[in-house]
């Protein structure tokens, strides 16, 4: 049985004091023991950005990779060792900007991984430029006269891309985050958890205060997560910001289509071909 402290890393997070990402780190450390997961059973894959430093701050197997490429790497890893729990993490620039192509395809592909986006609506590590989720007209270093582009709604994008688990949580609400992470990891298929993770240094709009005042846990008041149209409605509300599990669909994950090949994780397979198999391969060309 693992405990929360087993997931402590010897490396201290280099995030700014008050950064929303701390909430997610705490929630991971609490959710893994609840799921009876040991540190060696988890692979945490990240891209590049402040939030993508997370694998260094948690004691699991980890990969800190390229900007926007966490998902392809996490999916390749999962198919090669599907017995491990694979969690991909990153920021909004990473997942909804440079990596948005991979994001869309990962959702329709439905490989059994959990993707947690620490969405702060700003580029933090590069010191404050507009992000794909920055509000219209938001002033940043790269848009001093206001952001002229509409922000992406990651939830409707996910719902429209065949994502089988769509959730959103504010990282200040750790108990809710733990519950959603638990359900996301348990979900068989691709699970998106978009988290509001405020940047206390470069974003003066999407602050802790803003989210505390505006979010509402829709799982507390009868939202039906199997109803995709209800999920679309909640994802686009303007009177409050919906959090919780918006949508969950039970459908077979990608690995099911490779059931025979993946009966045993492929990294443990015998390698090469037998003499008999070789003869057969050759015969095809004679």
């Amino acid at each position, binding site marked *: 049985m693992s405990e929360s402290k087993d997931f402590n890393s*010897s*490396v201290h997070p*280099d995030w700014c004091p008050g950064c929303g990402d701390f909430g997610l780190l705490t929630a991971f450390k609490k959710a893994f023991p609840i799921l009876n997961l*040991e*540190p*060696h*059973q988890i*692979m945490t*894959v990240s891209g*590049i950005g402040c939030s993508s*430093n997370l*694998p*260094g701050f948690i*004691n*699991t*197997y*980890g*990969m*800190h*990779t*390229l900007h926007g*490429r966490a998902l*392809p*790497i*996490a*999916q*390749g*890893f*999962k*198919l*090669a*060792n599907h*017995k*491990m729990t694979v969690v991909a993490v990153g920021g909004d620039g990473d997942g909804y900007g440079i990596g948005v*192509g*991979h994001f*869309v*395809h990962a959702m329709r592909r439905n490989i059994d991984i959990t993707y947690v986006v620490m969405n702060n609506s700003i580029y933090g590590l590069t010191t404050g430029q507009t992000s794909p989720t920055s509000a219209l007209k938001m002033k940043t270093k790269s848009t001093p006269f206001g952001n002229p582009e509409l922000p992406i709604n990651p939830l409707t994008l996910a719902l429209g891309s065949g994502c089988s688990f769509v959730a959103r949580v504010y990282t200040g609400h750790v108990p809710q985050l733990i519950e959603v992470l638990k359900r996301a990891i348990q979900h068989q298929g691709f699970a998106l958890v978009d988290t509001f993770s405020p940047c206390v240094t470069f974003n003066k709009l999407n602050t802790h205060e803003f989210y505390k005042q505006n979010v509402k846990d829709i799982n507390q008041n009868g939202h039906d997560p199997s109803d995709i149209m209800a999920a679309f409605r909640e994802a686009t509300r303007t009177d409050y910001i919906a959090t919780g599990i918006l949508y969950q669909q039970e459908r077979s994950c990608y690995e099911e289509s*490779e059931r*025979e*090949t*993946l009966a045993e*994780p*492929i*990294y443990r*397979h015998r*390698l*090469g*071909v037998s*003499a008999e*198999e*070789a003869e057969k*391969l*050759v015969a095809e*060309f*004679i």
Partner: protein
Amino acid sequence: MTQVKDNIIVRIAGAAGDGIASSGEIFGKVCSRLGLHVMAYNSYQSAIRGGHVWLQLNVGSRKTLSHGEAPEVVVLLNKTSPLVHVPSVKKGGVVFYNSSNITEDLSKMRDDVTFYGVPFRELITEKGADMIMANIMLTGAVVQILGLNPQIGLDFIRDRFAKKQEEVIKLNQKIFQIGVDWAKQNAKSLDVVLKGDGKGRMFMTGNHAFGMGLLAHGLKFYAAYPMSPSTGVLHYLATKAKSHKIVVKQTEDEIAAVNFVIGAAHAGVRAATATSGGGFSLMVEGIGLAGMLEEPIVIINVQRGAPSTGIPTKQEQGDLNLMFGGSGDFARIVLAPKDMEDAFYTAGRALNLAEKYQTPVLILSDLFLSEHFQTVEPFQFDAVPIERGKIQESVNGGSYKRYLITEDGVSPRVLPGMPGAMYVSASDEHDESGVVISDVLAGLPSSLDIRNKIHTKRMKKLEVARAEDMRLPTLTGPANAELTLMGWGSTYDAIEEACQLLREAGVSVNHLHFTDLYPLPVEGVLEILNSCREIIAVETNFSSQMVRLIRAETGFSIKRTVNRYDGEPFTGEDIFKRLQEVLAHV
């Protein structure tokens, strides 16, 4: 004494969709099953219908080294083909054409060529027979005039259409037989003795050889995005995914493909991808990541013609410079197999080297090697034993360092999932444990030292590979020849053929050929280069990229070059002609 002619060049031409490939396959398989040697080259365009395509097969009792230049037996299937091909028929050659489709009198075009109009419509009474099957009939006629056993053709048609209904098989056999009978009555046998040795050989492409080579040497994971002329590897492996329990994944783009492969390699499986230059350009970022994370990945780059999207269906050796792309210095190995057998073994070697050095191994192929059909000698499936390099099976209590500094620069790998050995592989610069030194520690005196040590460790792999694994170029022919033709990769056979022609013309020549391109075993290479009297580099590119690499790595300068970059591959005859021009300028 006149030598008995023991090889013949056959060309089959028509519109895309006329069944050029299937007649080529039937004819090629008849030859290969008889134990003849075949080298076939397909000239086609990037169009599914309507392009003009032709397949040229050089068939011989002995190994044929190129697809040859002027064809001696030509099959024409559509109306535009006479104008394109009749002028290039060798004097004394024969032309078979479908006279139900090509109605003009071709004999006016050349008087030194024999024309046989085969009246497909008149000969056919069978229900279901369509003009599209003229290719089968004309193939039967060619088999007959070359004195090959038609029964082999009938047998192959049965094998080829095994999944179709019996009527379809019978109809195709009937049409083939009509072609055989027509030629028996109407055409003169050719003055050629094609004598096979009875050893049925595989008739395949380089992409098949790469695919089979990867499979035979432990590949478990293949991800790719379709791009000509590399897609054959994906197609081949996809048919083997279920039977051999490998994961074959078409991804959303090449960036995803290489990163899927990196993820799989990190888990401990042998993983590879193939692409062409444009896709490789997208993969460069991932290759750098694999260099930094020290992941064993194999990438086959099948070069096409010209820059950017270029000419997808043509040949060039223009991507050698690209193999050195990526930010910063990191270890990589570049191999360029010389022919199909070499492609099979190189695939195995690449998987081994990738795991031995935990770094990307790049294989350079090209359209010619990857897509032409050829008979190949049987592969030795146990010639390249699977060697997985340093994989650590346990950690004894103590802490595990993924990037432990070692003598040879290679740190033992623990495959993720082992209790007590958790580590992070980071693309940012890191210490031996994988902890990043790029952020708060960057520039601190202790970090400078770590940075030096860890970077030196990774680069050390190049020195070890250079000494232990990289093969010297081969020198064939007399060591003291007056002239040396230097090449690399797929041009091996064509240069050999050129050497034969040169020797027949009284030139003293040998052939220096590179397959292991980087890291070059510099001292050995220099010794060989210095032993050559006059070197001419032969490359299918504009800027002699191998000459440049040799100069960069060894300081040795090769002054004279033969370059071809129109998209067609070299033949011996072509190199021979081009050399006359180079030598005339001496």
